């Protein structure tokens, strides 16, 4: 009975179409944000920031981007890391070549570059669908990374092909400690998540979902497939681009194009599938799962004092098995699990 909507009557459509129509949810999210903004900085260690929270937030953002494309617009993509790479390398070059440009602007421009690349590689989606499209997006993945290694201008002719992200300075204030980077990332991700949530609950979002669920019908209703799909590619790549830039600037610092390899694309894909395809919340849950699980498994394996090669392989096996397990328990991901839990709570203590 904790989770009851009884007594919460919506007197206007405005209040009914709030992001979180239920009071409990609103309170919950506020507490969460406050925790993230105030409690976490107080309590967490540098390790937590720089190895857990920051990558978690960045991956969440990338997952959000992919979720927009795959979860909402239904275009399966395996090229996420490529868009991240574009965002990162473009931001780097903007900062390098336009000295004095505000960092955030560079990120946004980087995101826009990624969006443009996204649109270019999204064009085939007008004809190609499903796994065919997925396999075709691998072209993006390999091509972009190849370009970044081949064309040395992108890496400013560095001999080793790596770029070193410039320091993040906003209005004279340097974001140079893990805590500061964490806060910056948190803010960017929170704002972008809010925008994403708004998009998916208004007409754009509906157009994406319509195209995802049944594109012929969507066309008949008057959605323009080309525009809708390309917009999804653009927005998604924009998000991924920003995530990629943060990956370089707030997380790794020095990166080579190879850091944005197929593995990364797959990791992001796991996140949205484990978290929940077509769910903003799911992007976060999935990212948390994929970031934390190996750490937890690693710690576990070491407390068990297994021989190391056994431990490492077991880790991998358990990771795979857990993915399967979760899919079996709930194919719609953690977000759906959470929803079911809420529905059960609503009824609790009665079974139905």
């Amino acid at each position: 009975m904790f989770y009851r909507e009884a007594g919460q009557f919506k007197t206007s459509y405005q209040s009914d179409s709030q992001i979180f129509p239920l009071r409990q949810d609103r309170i919950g999210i506020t507490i969460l944000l406050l925790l993230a903004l105030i409690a976490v900085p107080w309590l967490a260690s540098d390790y937590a920031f720089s190895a857990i929270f920051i990558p978690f937030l960045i991956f969440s953002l990338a997952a959000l981007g992919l979720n927009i494309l795959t979860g909402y617009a239904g275009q399966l993509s395996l090229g996420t890391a490529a868009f991240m790479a574009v965002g990162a390398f473009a931001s780097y070059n903007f900062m390098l070549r336009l000295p004095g440009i505000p960092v955030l602007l560079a990120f946004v421009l980087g995101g826009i570059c990624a969006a443009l690349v996204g649109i270019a590689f999204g064009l085939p989606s007008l004809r190609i669908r499903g796994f065919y499209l997925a396999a075709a997006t691998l072209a993006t993945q390999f091509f972009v990374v190849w370009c970044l290694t081949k064309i040395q201008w992108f890496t400013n002719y560095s001999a080793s092909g790596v770029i070193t992200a410039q320091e993040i300075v906003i209005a004279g204030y340097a974001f140079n400690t893990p805590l500061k980077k964490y806060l910056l990332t948190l803010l960017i991700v929170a704002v972008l998540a809010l925008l994403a949530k708004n998009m998916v609950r208004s007409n754009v979002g509906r157009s994406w979902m319509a195209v995802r669920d049944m594109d012929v019908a969507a066309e008949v209703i008057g959605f323009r497939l080309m525009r809708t799909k390309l917009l999804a590619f653009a927005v998604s790549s924009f998000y991924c681009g920003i995530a990629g830039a943060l990956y370089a600037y707030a997380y790794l610092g020095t990166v080579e194009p190879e850091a944005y390899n197929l593995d990364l694309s797959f990791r992001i894909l796991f996140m949205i599938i484990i978290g929940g395809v077509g769910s903003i919340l799911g992007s976060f849950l999935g990212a948390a799962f994929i970031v934390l699980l190996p750490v937890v498994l690693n710690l576990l394996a070491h407390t068990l004092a297994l021989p190391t090669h056994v431990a490492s392989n077991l880790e991998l096996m358990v990771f795979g098995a857990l993915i399967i397990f979760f899919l079996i328990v709930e194919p719609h991901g953690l977000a759906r699990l959470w929803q079911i839990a809420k529905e059960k709570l609503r009824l609790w203590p009665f079974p139905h």
Partner: protein
Amino acid sequence: MNFFFEVLIGGLLSGVMYALVALGFVLIYKASGVFNFAQGAMVFFAALTCVGLSEKFQLSMWLAIPLTMLVMVLLGLAIERVVLRPLVNQPEITLFMATIGLTFFIEGLAQLLWGSQPHKLTLPIEDVPIEYVMEHYNILVSQFDVIAALICALLVTALALLFSKTKIGRALRAVADDHQAALAVGIPLQQIWAIVWTVAGFVALVAGLLWGARNGVQFALTFVALKALPVLILGGFTSVPGAIVGGLIIGASEKLAEVYIGPLVGGGIEGWFPYVLALLFLLVRPEGLFGEKIIRRI
């Protein structure tokens, strides 16, 4: 001109090797609508098990191969029971994801059982140029590749017959279309899947042996899957002959491109060229060369 033919033939033969891996994908996709990402891992697992068995227990290959086949059967059955059965009628992407989970599991299992060391695998076919062709035409054709191509042709014919001529073939296609309806007409999904995964295991074993003999048996065998993907989309996910034709096209054009276009742009284009080629091709035929037409009727 000789050089051109050499590249072309080399490419075609490599293409057959890709097709061999692609076949495994096609089988499972055709039979269940699942894109089996774990195929690469199965290739690795099969080859490693075979080599592992023969090295550890001093078995001859002729004993190790059937034993491995047995292992692959067990693996197929286990996958059906543990992974697929609970996921009947789920969206494709869920099944796809499950096979990724499976990939990790199989990779971990393989290395846990047999260690992470690379091994050599010697088949009684030597990988040297065929002398006759070398002498008379001065074109290099690898004997190994030719034999591999023959084996592949054999497999393809057998599988193509299986799909087009038998009741099982029809049932497989039905399952791929609609799990629920297939169940409703009494098609035993579990048996079908078990069979298909076993056959896929067999194909993986063949691919694993041939690729293993070529590149050594090591983890990187899982990467050959990446070579099979463009072949698949070009040939069509659902077509056995498509895998072969796609393989030939991809193999030949990728080699020609690397040799003739590569130097102009700095080379190393083999990684993405097949994908871009396949993509361009898809723009003309969205379901690949021989893929089943995508029916969108309202």
